[in-house]
């Protein structure tokens, strides 16, 4: 009987997906670099922040998924309908800005990963750019997506590595629960990057659009919630072990000069306890795979969000002349990402970290847009935000704004934070 064979399985497949996929793409170049840098530079001292960010990620993703299910519309759509042309233009400029940075980071991830295989970036970056463009425009992307997603499994090695390095578990546990703040500019910058790479602006648009596309009925909201919660947990368990593994292998062994100028090869050493001499290869495969995945998703989802908001023709099924804005944004972001990465002598890791800071600084504005929408009864009906979600999301906004202010303050010469 066809009916019986499919019933539960399909219901799960229909609902489960977007959350897990986005979370997997979360451990992209930006994620790997930021978590690794956090472990290498500050040991276990940022674990508590990661635990907090995990709660925030789960809450924010749940909000997006709920909005997608209840309204059947993407975030860009709702921003336009609620905030008009001016608000939308502001939000879309922020999104374009953040996603241009993210795309640069993904290409830098591809370049850094391929350099570990001895391929110079002048070869790897143009090839990757053309490949991404063709894959997406030709529509063969869904197949490739599955391959890239499975490459993400490479990062399970971090969990093994995290156990094999025999970290001081007492300290790990204490650092995960007790906040420790290092009053340094580097620490604040990395904290913004850590939040910004985990709860990214682009993901809010991608996740909600993906959920809305599936047309999930309100009754199945619970499945969608389970999907994003599991997704958030999986992402951050890996992130947790990246920090633990790099902290145990690298922290305290590097000079401040080295720390300020990390190389992808240094990060790879965190995998050595589990992978031995294959550590570098494994790290490079994972980095290139995840960066390639996000490098395709980010430009594509940006093009969809902007054209949706302004009501322009969109979709890879169109020809270039029919949907110039859609293809223009998509191609433009890839070109920016590739060109920026090709700048000679550019430190790739520093650039990746910087792009995550940009995301973290822009994120509060996107979260505020979301919060207004989620508290609007005309839009959400009885599914409006509860107090808990408002508090967590609001707190995330506040923390990011305080951190950003601290960065600004620390740039003033002579302030106690500078230096």
């Amino acid at each position, binding site marked *: 009987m066809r009916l019986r064979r499919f019933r539960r399985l399909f219901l799960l497949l229909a609902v489960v997906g977007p959350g897990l996929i986005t979370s997997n793409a979360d451990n992209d170049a930006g994620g790997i670099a930021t978590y690794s840098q956090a472990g290498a530079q500050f040991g276990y001292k940022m674990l508590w922040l990661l635990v907090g960010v995990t709660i925030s990620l789960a809450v924010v993703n749940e909000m997006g998924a709920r909005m997608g299910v209840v309204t059947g*519309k993407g975030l860009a759509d709702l921003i336009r309908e609620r905030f008009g042309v001016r608000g939308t233009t502001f939000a879309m400029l922020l999104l374009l800005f953040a996603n241009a940075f993210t795309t640069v980071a993904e290409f830098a991830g591809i370049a850094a990963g391929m350099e570990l295989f001895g391929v110079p970036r002048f070869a790897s970056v143009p090839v990757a750019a053309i490949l991404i463009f063709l894959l997406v425009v030709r529509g063969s992307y869904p197949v490739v997506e599955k391959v890239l997603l499975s490459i993400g499994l490479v990062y399970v090695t971090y969990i093994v590595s995290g156990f094999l390095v025999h970290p001081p578990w007492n300290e790990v546990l204490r650092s995960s629960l007790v906040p420790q703040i290092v009053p340094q500019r580097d620490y604040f910058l990395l904290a913004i990057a850590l939040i910004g790479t985990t709860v990214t602006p682009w993901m809010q648009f991608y996740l909600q659009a993906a959920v809305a596309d599936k047309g999930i009925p309100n009754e199945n909201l619970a499945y969608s919630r389970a999907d994003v919660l599991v997704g958030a947990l999986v992402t951050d368990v890996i992130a947790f072990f990246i920090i633990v593994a790099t902290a145990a292998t690298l922290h305290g062994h590097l000079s401040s000069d080295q720390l300020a100028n990390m190389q992808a090869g240094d990060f790879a050493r965190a995998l050595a306890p589990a992978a031995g001499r294959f550590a570098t290869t494994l790290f490079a495969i994972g980095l290139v795979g995840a960066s390639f995945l996000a490098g395709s998703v980010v430009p594509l989802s940006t093009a969809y969000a902007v054209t949706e908001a302004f009501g322009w023709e969109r979709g890879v099924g169109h020809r270039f002349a029919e949907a110039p804005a859609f293809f223009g944004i998509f191609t433009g972001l890839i070109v920016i990402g590739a060109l920026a990465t090709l700048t000679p002598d550019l430190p790739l890791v520093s650039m990746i970290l910087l792009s995550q800071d940009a995301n973290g600084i822009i994120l509060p504005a996107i979260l505020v847009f979301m919060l207004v929408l989620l508290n609007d009864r005309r839009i959400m009906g009885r599914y409006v935000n509860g107090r808990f979600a408002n508090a967590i999301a609001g707190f995330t906004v506040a923390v990011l704004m305080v951190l950003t202010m601290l960065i600004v303050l620390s740039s003033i010469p002579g302030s106690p934070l500078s230096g």
Partner: protein
Amino acid sequence: MLFLTEILGAEVIDVRQRRTGAVRDLTVHVQEPYPIVTGLVVSRRRELAIPWSEVRTFAAVTREVALRSSREEIESRRADPDDIWLARDVLDKQVVDTDGRRVVRVNDLQLVESGGRLLLVGADIGVRGILRRLGVEGFAKRLARLFGRDLPMALVSWEVVDPLNSVPDRQKPASDDAVRLRISGRRIARLHPADIADIVEELGAKERKTVFDTLTEEVAADTLEEMELEDQVSVIEHMDARRASEILDDMPPDEVADILTELPEDVAQQLLGLMKKAEAEDVKELLAYEEDTAGGLMTTEYVAVSENLTAQECIDELRRLEPDAESVYYVFVVDGDEHLKGVLSLRDLIVARPDQPISSIMIRDVIAVHPDDDAKEVAAVLSKYNLLAVPVVDDEFRIQGLVTVDDALDAVLPESVKRKLPRAH
């Protein structure tokens, strides 16, 4: 000519020259061909509804609306609950341009004064509307002229616009909303089902629902047939079960079986229970077969006639059955126990003498497949014998159904090839 966004935010001055608030919205009464503006919504301490008859003038330059009466006289007015609020319900929303057969976004609304009344005549869907609202329309126009270009206005007449407002209105009962939508949803319902399908595939799940709510069962069934399985399932899932079952009744049983397979079992069973008995039986039979077999692909809508008829009687019988175009490729001849005895083409029937028994003109060696045959074998048979459809028979050669060439092709073509096929417009 006036645009909605030029009047929004304008200062309202009453007859005694007192500031009475800023224009927040315009209300219109829906009528053909152009909706008529019935009043202003003004935000002050609380919402004020001012009937359009109280408006003396609107000065576009100073952005001031002058009233005929004092604000005390209008304090108690309420907006008609049946009216549509332009800024709230239409502006920035997606609408269907039924002329261009596409989904567009309303950047602004065009109003025209005619015979003392203000009418909503069109929607600005172009970049000019966006620039106007950013306050840079004039600047952009000058900039364009500098490069010898012109910024054309992209307006769509309201006569061809179909709003898709699907934002639930919590202040009103649901039935009220449905009535409003049904009135405004007529235009899209007049399009060809293939065009409606193209349009709704661009919409979000909830907006699809509002479009489908305005279609008759037959049109909804035809539209659904033109859509991808994934979208069909989502539409049916969002629909009220009773209406969904009525639409499924109008669809070919093989398509219904495909849709039900993808639904959770309790939903599928509920829909089967609500469907007409005969249709539900057909679907249940099909559900028993594996997906990629002749049984899974076949439809139970085929034409079978008794072997004892004459050519004329057979044509009369076809007239009575009114079969769908898809199933009339071949006329199957069966005995009293549904055993397949032969096959006729329409041509054979028409060229035969009216009194000729069909058993003397039919082809007796019928090419047929078994329900368990693999989809690839079925496609091979269709291709080898150049058939448009092939009958499916059981072990005793009793006819069970019919696989048409398009369904067989769908099943054997790899996904990658299907995606590359040009999209018809």
